[in-house]
């Protein structure tokens, strides 16, 4: 029961802040709403027994990426409102409609899946370590070592690319 209450509360906050992020006019406000949204998502992770992911969510997203957004928003001091010019060719309504259609489809799928029997809870795979963080780390450094290295390489490349792009004169 408490679980349900917590879920619905968090879901409401998440969706609400997401809608605010999308709809707010002021960029800084939407950035703030994004941070809040991430925080609630982190709370959801905690509820899903993934404290490590929750902390990483806060640490990386809220503490790193969004700060980056905030930087950019501050560096980009616009003379005129950012969305002044609107191209006549954009198909906004079609986009809305299509998004709604996809939502309905996904809902149909999910609900039909919900009509079926709930997914079986398979027993936990036996990892030599216990505890969420240890398990994630174990998998990262054993089975998924190569993807991990690739991800690190991707981050390195992204860092260099960001420097090259943002620096005025190299």
């Amino acid at each position, binding site marked *: 029961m408490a679980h349900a209450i917590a879920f619905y509360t968090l879901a409401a906050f998440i969706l609400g802040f997401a809608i605010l992020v999308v709809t707010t006019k002021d960029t800084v406000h939407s950035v703030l709403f994004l941070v809040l949204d991430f925080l609630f998502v982190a709370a959801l992770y905690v509820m899903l027994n993934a404290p490590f992911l929750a902390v990483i969510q806060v640490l990386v997203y809220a503490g790193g990426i969004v700060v980056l957004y905030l930087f950019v928003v501050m560096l980009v001091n616009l003379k005129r409102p950012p969305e002044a010019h609107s*191209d006549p*060719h*954009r198909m906004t309504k079609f*986009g809305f409609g*299509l998004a709604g*259609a*996809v939502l309905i*489809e996904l809902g149909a*799928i999910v609900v039909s899946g919900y009509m079926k029997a709930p997914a079986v809870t398979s027993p936990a795979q036996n990892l030599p370590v216990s505890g969420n963080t240890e398990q994630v780390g174990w998998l990262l450094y054993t089975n998924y070592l190569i993807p991990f290295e690739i991800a690190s390489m991707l981050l390195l490349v992204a860092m260099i690319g960001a420097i090259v792009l943002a620096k005025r004169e190299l």
Partner: protein
Amino acid sequence: MKYIWLIPLLPGLGAAINGLLGIRYFSRKASGAIACTMMLAALGLSLVAFWQMLGLPADARGVDVVVAQWIPSIPLATSNGQVGMFGVPWGYRLDPLSGMMILVVTGIGTLIHVYSTAYMADEPRGGVARFFCYLNLFCFFMLNLVLGDNFLVMFVGWEGVGLCSYLLIGYWYEKKSASDAGKKAFITNRIGDWGFVLGVFLIYSTFGTLDFRAVQNAAATMPVEAMHFGVLSFICLFLFVGATGKSAQIPLFVWLPDAMEGPTPVSALIHAATMVTAGVYMLGRNAVLFSHAPYVMTIVAIVGVLTALMAATIGLVQYDIKRVLAYSTVSQLGYMFTAMGVGAFSAGAFHLMTHAFFKALLFLGSGSVIHAMGGEQDMRKMGGLKKYLPVTFATMMVGTLAISGIIPLSGFFSKDEILFQAFVHNKVVWVVAVITAAMTAFYMWRLMSMTFFGGYNGPAWETSSHAAVATAAAHHVPHPADPHAHGQAHKDDHEVSHGPADTHGHDDHGGGHGHGPWHGPHESPTPMTFPLMALAVGAIVAGLVGVPIAMGGSNAIEKFLEPSFTASESAVAGEGAAKGAEASAEAASAEHEAEPHVSVNVERGLMLFSLFVAICGIAVAHKFYVKNPEISDGLAEQWAGAHKVLSNKYYVDEAYDATVISGTFAAGKGLWTVDRNVVDGVVNGSGWITIISAWFSGLTDRTVVDGLVNLVGRICEEGSFWFRKIQTGLVQNYALLMLFGVFAFVSIYLFMR
């Protein structure tokens, strides 16, 4: 004897050295020394070879030495169907005839080289080297010519000597008359060579080989074309055309007098002693062929004797000392051809040898005289030179007597032999020959008397430095004696030179001081007089090898030269055909069969008669030109027409200009017109056709091909005009398409499950 190939090679080596290095680096003496050394070595080698050959039995005196395979065997069809292998070895052949020839060439060549060292002493350094290079080169080719054992090697020498004569005649190439004379000689020779080459082709297509021996043996087996004019006759005719070209017979003799533009040693060596006799040598070399073609023999005899007569008549009235000798050369060559024509091959060769001696002697003497006179060639400017240059006088006297046929000098025997043979065969020819002999004696004595006897009436000389101008002035003063002759003098001068004053410039006969003032007639230096004396000795004794039986001598030269004029018995025996054997025998010893018909007395009588005729000529000339010269002038006025015709050489040159040369020009013009109208017309027509067809193909290109291409392009353009509406350039529209893709897949999943 295996090393006879060295004999031609040595002069060639000298020529190479002088030509490649000498012109740039050598001094006059060095180049002259090299050339003379080479010639001397060649002379020694040929003497050795000749001696060794004498050691052989008479019928084995034919040695073939193949240096290398020149043209490898090429299958080449012949007239009688079967295919012969056309292979030509670079081979040399030493037999009595070529032996004699190499002796003549090397001997006289050596002497003339020595002579030239002094004669050309005042040429510019490079010029001297060039001169000796040409001279050595000439000897190289001449020896190739006489030693070659097949027609092709002989032809190489043939052309080479032509080239060298061209180069040497045009030695003073700054001088237009010299270069023109060179060109004239060259072109005239080409006409003859054309005949010679045709003859060679015909020989190959007839016999399938070019080797002398093989051709002779093959020809010996063929019937004598006494009744009809067969292939052998054609061969001989073509060869004879070549001979006329090279040996200056009618109708191709015109180049020889002009060839006197060259330096006097050249005239002596090439245009008197050796090259011009190549034709005679060639006839003798192909004696078997000719003896099978009686008609051509007759033609040869007639042409020869006519040439002799005509040249002699022209020689009567010439005033240029070298031209007189040139015409005498032509007439002597005519004698030789007469001998060949009447079948007296050995006599012709004999006369060739003797003539080589005394004519070279005469030319060198004349050169000495010209040298002494400081370039003067007009005999009327000379006279009384006997006391100035005794050696030249003595030697030239020997030569004159020899050529006039005074016993016991060499000319007597050879010429008398020819006359005898002519008498035996053809009385008309004999008569003309005798007249010619008289004329020969006359004009030779006239030359001698005008040059050496009488009083000196040349230009005055002083020791002052501006004498040249004075001499020039004196030269143009009209001669008091004969105003009429003066005009001809002028004409002659025009043809050759304008006397010492301006001959100094180009034709440098100034002797040891050509560039300084002229100090009057004087004896030539030793290098010039020594060859004179040597040749004089030769001219005296050369006849003794041919003392006829009628005079108790044994006609050694005939027996010696016999094998060269007959097919080898071995080949004939191998042939085995009786008719062939009989024919070859007849051909081989035509005069031997003829001999019994005339008795020894007749022969002796003929000898006396010819001797008498010669003496008559000499006497008349002496009377005219020494005792009282005005008689000659009187005669000249009396027979002005004839005199004019003679001194203009029968207008042969003018006739050639009018006919041959202008004809050639006209033909060229006609051909040019044809070329411009017809050939260019065809070319232009094809060009127009191409243009028109190209226009049409261009039309199809524009309409059809470009049409298709444009159609494709248009389709793409229209299609893109509609499709690019999707490309709004708005990122979000593309994202929208992505979302549409998601929608599509999800719906597919929905409906597929």
